[in-house]
């Protein structure tokens, strides 16, 4: 099943690559956001099947976005995509309810595998 995806990342390059990769697998990017307020507004407007979330954002770190989205919709499915691989961060992200973690840099097949998991479940 194709996913409707919200991409939250401060980097225009990362957002573009995620879009390009996701579309290769037949998924659709319904919105992009670079800050916490943008992410919350986009989530409310589009109710996506999946959110991909970077942890470094200009206004409010990714962890704050993760918590805000899960408050908004406890069943929100959020795939954290970050270059930060600090163990304590992973634990916080899991505690906050992330559905998965993909570390940067990622390849087309890395993202494809992750998205397939969500589209099947």
């Amino acid at each position, binding site marked *: 099943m194709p996913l409707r995806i919200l991409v939250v990342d401060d*980097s225009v*390059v990362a957002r573009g690559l995620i879009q390009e990769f996701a579309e290769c697998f037949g998924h659709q990017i319904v919105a992009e956001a670079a800050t916490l307020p943008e992410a919350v507004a986009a989530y409310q407007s589009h109710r996506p099947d999946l959110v991909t979330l970077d942890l*470094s954002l200009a206004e409010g770190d990714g962890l704050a976005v993760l918590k805000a989205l899960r408050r908004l919709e406890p069943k929100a499915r959020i795939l954290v995509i970050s*270059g*930060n691989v600090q163990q304590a*961060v992973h634990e916080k992200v899991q505690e906050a309810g992330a559905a998965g973690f993909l570390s*940067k*840099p990622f390849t*087309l097949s890395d993202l494809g595998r992750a998205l397939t998991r969500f589209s099947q479940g």
Partner: protein
Amino acid sequence: MILSDTVQQHLRRLMRTGMDSGLARLANISGAPWQAGELSIRQGPAEGLRLPQAAGPQHCGAIFTMPGGVFLATFPEASAAAVAGAFFKGFSKRPDAWKGKGPDAVAEIANIVLNPVVNLLGDAALMIIFLSPPEVRQGEMNLLDEEAFGKLLLREDGQAVRADIQIASAELRASGAISMLLNSALAGLLAESLGA
């Protein structure tokens, strides 16, 4: 003196380990091997740690802040173009569609490369560190350096620690530099953790 010789040795080892991981990521991103040069650590009044004023070639830089510290990643313009070009060629099916996004790509790449260093620093200081999003800059090296120092929130003592490492890829004919600036508070935290 903020960091003792022993702590500096530990910090050097930690940064080396982090940079090795970072450069492995950079090799993956750029499709070419990268090597790191000597790591230098200097400390003292922040004013004395800045690069001297001197005209030089244009660089593309990305500045990242964290509580008590700043990272600056710089590439000479030709190197930045080579790294960004290799990244788009290796990762995107439409490398030509990214015209004008070279500096943004360099910033994203720098973020990915620096994170292993930041993660190790965070683990050592027993704190979670999120790097800020990069601020992309273009200009002469000493101006980028000055801006990075301007973002370092110094304590009253005005002391800072500066670590620099040069990186290069012969295959890509590219080079760059990573600088880390710490104020005395973060340096003190690291000293406590690493000096034991």
